[in-house]
């Protein structure tokens, strides 16, 4: 797998502890870039001022930093465009509906 692919795969392992759904399925990840050994992740959260703010962005940093070939991770938290439910995967929607 390419390094970019590994970074994307690793993000599936970061779970929102309130909803119990990973942040990729929730549609929080807007962009992932890898340049050399530096990963840059652009993401959002479901609500501005979410109390899990720091925990989730730190989680992303830790998880991606663990990957071989990555030495440096930047997380860019953006509110534009704002998150909306249609950014979620079908899997996440189903889980919210029945979970």
């Amino acid at each position, binding site marked *: 797998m390419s390094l970019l692919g590994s970074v994307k795969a690793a993000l599936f392992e970061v779970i929102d502890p309130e909803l119990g759904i990973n942040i990729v399925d929730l549609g929080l990840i807007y962009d992932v870039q890898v340049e050399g050994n530096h990963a840059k992740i652009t993401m959002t959260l479901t609500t501005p001022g979410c109390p899990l703010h720091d925990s989730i962005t*730190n989680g992303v940093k830790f998880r991606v930093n663990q990957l071989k070939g990555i030495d440096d991770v930047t997380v860019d938290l953006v509110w534009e465009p704002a998150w909306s439910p249609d950014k979620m995967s079908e899997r996440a929607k189903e889980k919210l509906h029945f979970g």
Partner: protein
Amino acid sequence: MKSETNIKLPLSFIIFGIIAFVVAQSTLFFGHDFIANGQFRVPPIWSGSHFLLLGFAVMIAMGAMYQLVPVAFLTPIWNEKFGAVQFIVTALGITSFAILLGVHASYAIYGGAIAIIGILMFLFQMLKTLQAQSKKNVMSYFVIGALSALFLAIIAGFTLAWNFSFTPFVSQDPMLFTHITLGVAGWFTLLIFGFSYKLVPMFSLSHGFSMKWAKPAFLTYVIGLVLLIGSYWLETHSIQTVGWILLCGGFTFFGLDVREILTKRLRRKLDKPFAFAVFAIGIGFFVHLIAAILSIAQVKSPTVWSWVVFFYIMGWVIASILGYLYKIIPFLWWTYKYSERIGKEKVPTLKEMINEKASVILFTLFIISIIGLTIGGLYSIGIVVFLFQGLLTITSVLYAISVLKIFFI
């Protein structure tokens, strides 16, 4: 930007609050005879009600605000060291005040003075923190309104305690009603309104709602409070009735927004503690409606009104706090224990940290207790009050155990 507060600060407030909750219910149990006879202005009830409202509810609210204000308003707490000192002063003040109210009311003013210094320090801290917020939103107005009401409530409380020790300089009855209205309806209700606008959408994962009633709710409720307080001093029943109608109207506007938020939610199944906090909003609406109807019907019985106040406090304020606390504690503990490990290894979800089944039983026992108490109190049946205040005391112990257990996960 790092905006989170060091967990130790909110946790200190919350642990103190949980212990005070048990002490409060035990003290009230000790005074069950007075409750059954409709005598509330006696030492054990003064003591129990302030352990409950100051020791539990105010302390929990402070702890929650230390945690939530930075994340919700995106501005860090002004000074956390000051916060630690504030905790110690307030805890000492409230404890000594509530004890003195029970054993030697004419000295209560000294404990009360320390409690007031602690609360003023908190108000100063929040003022400094909110000042740094660049853009005010609707939630800010509710919080600023609530903090202003808290300030006035403790000043009123101070004059009441003063009158116990020295030559009275204001009449006690209208001042007591003013104190209760500001403390219970002004401070707690506005605060819960404000935080609900943040927490209800968050816990239900709601999207695309309007909050169009927030401003009318705020204005109507505040004008209602002003009129209600005015009516105590002017002794005009019609103003009191208009006041209650406005409070009921303000509550209804808030309820309409909550209903819209919930209908637009993505999360179908709400977790139980949060569902209980939403249920408390229903009780709150019901109490406001009853109060408005009683006032229109010119019911003046002090016993009936005492139980309206009781139900207002327990069914709306305390129930909301008990529900949210069950969400806040796992969150705080999770942040402390697992936030560094998220993404590194398998960490529990917040839901896995609580026992939902136990919470449903506790919330049910709580509701049964306060209904039983109200019936026993309204009909002055001593044994019923004894049994249900006993049940409430046991429930409070079990509640404390069940939330403190989270810290051992």
